[in-house]
C-alpha cells in the first residue's frame, strides 16, 4: 500500500476539516450526534489516532445505522447514519476530491443545480487557517433551487422552447454500481487506486438496507459526500449534453431538457438512456415524457416548481448546527470555532422568506401587525381548503402536501416571530386541519410537527398523536416524529408511561424504540420503571442504540445513574 496517498487524504488537518464539515451537515437525523460529541470531546487526540489507524491500514468501516423514510408513493427511502469515524473517512476523501474537481464542476454551474460545492471546498484544509472559515460543503439548497426554477421558467417563457423532456433516474443512490463510480473517479478525477480500494470496501460496508447488504451497488443516502459522488458519476453525461448545446438543467437526478422539436429531444432521451444503462442505471419510465409546451396556459412544470421551494426544514443550517452543539460535550474551543463562523453567505438565504419583507422595519408595532396579518391569512386560507364544517377537501385533485407545507411554514414562522413580542396562542380551530395534513401526507411529518409544537399541552392533540402512533405500523420515520412530538410537548401520568413502555416492548423499529426510550427517560421519575428500562435497554442487540440512549439518559442529571455502572450493565 502506498502511504503517500493515505497521508494526503488522512492527515489530521483534513480529518479536522472533515469533522467541522460533518457538524455542518444540514440533515439532523443522519448525523451521528453522539459520535460527534464523543469524538469532539478530545478532538485533536482522536483525530491523530484515527489518522494513524488509517495510514497504517488498521481502519475498517462498520455497518451503518439505517432507517426508512416514507415517500409520497408509499415506498420508502433508506437513510444511512454513518458512525462518526466512518463519516470522517468519507468526508475526508470527499474533501480532497472536491478540492481537485471544483474547477471542473464549476464549469457546469449553469446546468447542474443540486449539491453544488461552495468555493471554499477548493482550498481544502487551508481554510482552517482563515480568519473566518466557512465549513459548508455545498451551497445552500434553497438558493440553488431558486436558480434552477428561474432557469426553467426562462427556457419556457422567455426562450419559448416548444418541447420539453423530463425524466429522473430510478432509485438513483441505491442503484449506483461501485465499479462504475470508482472508474469515473479514477478516469476523470485522478483519484488514487489505493483510495478507491478503501472506498470500495467502505461502500460495501455502508450499502443496502437495514436488513441486508447489497455489495457492489448503492451509496448511502444522507451523508453529504454521497451527493458529490453522485454528481461526479453524472459528470461525463453533463459534459456531453452541455457540449451539444442543449437547454439542459439537472437537480441531482431530476433532469429537464427543453428544445424546439420532439425529434431533437428524442435524440437526447436515447443518449441519456444509453449513458445510464452503460452505468448500470435506468431512467424512470413512469416519469419520463417528451411533451409539447402549450403556450396558452401556464406550464405544469413551472407551476410545480413555483410551489416547491417551500419544502425543506424551516430552520436555517446555522440553527441546525447550534442545536447539535448545544447538546453539550464538545470542547469550548470547538464550539467557538464553529459558532458564527459557518454562516452561509447572506445572499444565499431564502429570498422568499417572510422575514426578508420586514427586515427594514424597526417599529415593533408594525412588526407585530405584519406577523398578525400572516397568522390571520393562514387562519382564513387553511379552512378554505375544506368544505364548510367538514374535513373533506374542496378540491382534492389540486390540493396536495405542498399547499399544507406552505401554510404550515408560514404559520409556524409567524407564531415563532410574534412570540418574541407578545404572548401568542395557536388557533385551536386549525388543529383538525393540521392533523388532517399530518395523517394524509405522512411523508411530510417532520414539517407538520414543527407547527404542532405550538399546541403544547393540548389534550386533543395528545390523544390524536397517540392514536396515530398506534394506528400506523408501516412507516418508522413517521412514528419517530410522532413520538418525538409527544415527548417534548406533553406531560404523562405513571399509567400512561407504563403504556408507552408496552409499546416499546412491541416496537420493531430501532429508530422508534430510541424515541420511546427518550420519552420514558424524560418523563419517568419512578425508580422502578427506570430500572425496568435499564434492563430492557441492556437486552438491545444494537450497541449504537444503547449508546445514544445512554447519552440521552446522561443529559438529565435528575435521572442519570452512575454512568460507569450503566455502561457495564449494558454490556458495552
Amino acid at each position, binding site marked *: 500500500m502506498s502511504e503517500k496517498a493515505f497521508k494526503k487524504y488522512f492527515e489530521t488537518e483534513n480529518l479536522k476539516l472533515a469533522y467541522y464539515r460533518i457538524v455542518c451537515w444540514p440533515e439532523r437525523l443522519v448525523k451521528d450526534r*453522539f*459520535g460527534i*460529541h*464523543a*469524538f469532539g*470531546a*478530545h478532538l485533536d487526540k*482522536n483525530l491523530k489516532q484515527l489518522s494513524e489507524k488509517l495510514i497504517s491500514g488498521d481502519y*475498517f*468501516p*462498520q*455497518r451503518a445505522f439505517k432507517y426508512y423514510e416514507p415517500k409520497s408513493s408509499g415506498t420508502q427511502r433508506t437513510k444511512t447514519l454513518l458512525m462518526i*469515524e466512518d463519516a470522517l473517512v468519507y468526508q475526508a476523501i470527499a474533501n480532497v476530491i472536491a478540492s481537485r474537481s471544483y474547477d471542473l464542476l464549476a464549469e457546469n454551474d449553469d446546468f447542474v443545480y443540486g449539491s453544488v460545492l461552495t468555493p471554499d471546498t477548493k482550498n481544502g484544509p487551508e481554510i482552517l487557517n482563515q480568519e473566518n472559515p466557512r465549513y459548508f460543503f455545498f451551497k445552500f439548497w434553497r438558493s440553488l433551487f431558486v436558480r434552477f426554477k428561474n432557469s426553467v421558467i426562462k427556457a419556457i417563457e422567455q426562450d419559448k422552447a416548444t418541447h420539453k423532456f423530463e425524466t429522473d433516474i430510478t432509485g438513483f443512490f441505491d442503484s449506483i454500481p461501485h465499479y462504475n463510480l470508482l472508474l469515473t473517479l479514477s478516469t476523470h478525477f485522478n483519484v488514487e487506486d489505493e483510495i478507491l480500494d478503501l472506498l470500495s*470496501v467502505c461502500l*460495501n*460496508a455502508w450499502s443496502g438496507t437495514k436488513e441486508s*447488504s447489497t*455489495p457492489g451497488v448503492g451509496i448511502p443516502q444522507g451523508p453529504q459526500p454521497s451527493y458529490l459522488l453522485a454528481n461526479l458519476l453524472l459528470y461525463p453525461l453533463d459534459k456531453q449534453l452541455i457540449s451539444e448545446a442543449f437547454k439542459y438543467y439537472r437537480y441531482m437526478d431530476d433532469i429537464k431538457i427543453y428544445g424546439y422539436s420532439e425529434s431533437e429531444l428524442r435524440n437526447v432521451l436515447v443518449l441519456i438512456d444509453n449513458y445510464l444503462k452503460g452505468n448500470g442505471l435506468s431512467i424512470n419510465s413512469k416519469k419520463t415524457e417528451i411533451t409539447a409546451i402549450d403556450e396558452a396556459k401556464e406550464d405544469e412544470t413551472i407551476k410545480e416548481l413555483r410551489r416547491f421551494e417551500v419544502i425543506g426544514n424551516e430552520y436555517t443550517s446555522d440553527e441546525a448546527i447550534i442545536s447539535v452543539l448545544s447538546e453539550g*460535550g464538545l470542547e469550548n474551543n470547538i464550539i467557538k470555532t464553529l459558532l458564527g463562523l459557518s454562516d452561509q453567505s447572506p445572499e444565499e438565504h431564502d429570498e422568499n422568506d417572510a422575514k426578508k419583507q420586514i427586515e427594514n422595519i424597526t417599529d415593533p408595532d408594525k412588526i407585530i401587525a405584519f406577523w398578525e396579518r400572516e397568522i390571520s391569512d393562514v387562519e382564513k386560507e387553511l379552512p378554505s381548503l375544506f368544505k364548510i364544517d367538514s374535513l373533506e377537501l374542496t378540491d382534492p385533485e389540486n390540493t396536495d402536501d405542498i399547499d399544507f407545507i406552505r401554510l404550515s411554514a408560514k404559520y409556524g414562522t409567524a407564531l415563532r416571530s410574534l412570540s418574541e413580542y407578545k404572548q401568542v396562542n395557536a388557533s385551536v380551530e386549525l388543529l383538525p386541519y393540521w392533523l388532517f395534513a399530518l395523517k394524509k401526507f405522512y411523508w411530510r411529518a417532520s414539517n407538520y410537527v414543527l407547527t404542532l409544537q405550538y399546541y403544547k399541552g393540548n389534550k386533543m392533540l395528545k390523544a390524536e398523536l397517540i392514536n396515530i402512533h398506534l394506528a400506523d405500523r408501516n412507516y418508522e420515520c413517521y412514528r419517530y416524529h410522532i413520538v418525538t412530538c409527544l415527548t417534548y410537548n406533553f406531560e404523562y401520568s405513571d399509567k400512561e408511561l407504563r403504556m408507552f413502555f408496552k409499546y416499546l416492548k412491541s416496537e420493531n423499529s430501532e429508530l422508534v424504540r430510541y424515541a420511546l426510550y427518550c420519552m420514558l427517560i424524560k418523563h419517568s421519575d419512578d*425508580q422502578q420503571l427506570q*430500572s425496568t428500562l435499564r434492563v430492557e435497554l441492556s437486552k438491545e442487540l444494537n*450497541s449504537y442504540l444503547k*449508546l445514544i440512549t*445512554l*447519552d440521552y439518559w*446522561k443529559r438529565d*442529571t*435528575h435521572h*442519570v*445513574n*452512575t*454512568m*460507569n455502572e450503566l*455502561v457495564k450493565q449494558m454490556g*458495552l
Partner: protein
Amino acid sequence: MKFTELRNTMQSFSGASTPDYQLAYITSEVKDLLNGLNNQFIEYLTKDITNTELPFNLQQWLGSPYYQSSNENAKDCLEYCPTVKHIWGRKIKSWTDSALKSYDNFLLKYVQIDKGESVHKTYSGLKETDVYNHLIAKGGVEQEIGQNFKSIYQIRSVFQHIQAEEKDGIRVPKRISNSQCNKWRDVIIQCFKLSLIALCNLILEDESKSS
C-alpha cells in the same frame, strides 16, 4: 473478488466493539462533576442532602483536620452517586458508610470544640455511638440529632453484618431486596437532612450568641 471472499468481507463489517473514546465520553459525568466542584465535595453533598444553601462557611467552621476528613469521604459519596436522587438499591450501603464518616466529623467538632464537652467512652476507644449517646443524653434538639444519627448507624450495621434467617433449622443469609434498600435510603436521607439542618441552626445560634 471471489464470492466466498466477498461474503467473508461483508460479514466482517458488523460486530465492532465500542471505541474507548465513546465509553470514556459516556462515563465522563461523575468525573466532570468532581472536577467542577473545585474540591468542595462536602459543601456540595451537604447542600444536596439538605436541599438548602449553607448558612455559613463550612471549611472555616470545621477547620483542620475535620474538614479534610469530611471532604474526602464526601468525594467517595459523590463517586457512588452524583446526587442523592441517584441512590438506588444496594448503592445506599457504601454511600451511607462514607456519608456517616463525613458527618461524624461535624458532631465531633460541634461537641468537643464548639461546646468544649468531653464524650464518655464506653470502651477503650471512642466509638461513633458514644457521640450519638452523648447528644441524646443532652435532650432537646441535640437529642434529636443524636437519635437520627443513631438510627442511620443502626441501618448501616444491617448492611455490614450478614442478616440471617432460619430455614429447616439452618441459618442462611437473608437477601436484602432493592425495594428494602430504597426504603432504608429514604429513612437515611431524611435523618441526615433533619439532623444537618438542626445542627446548622445550632451552630448559627452559638455564633450569634458569641458575637
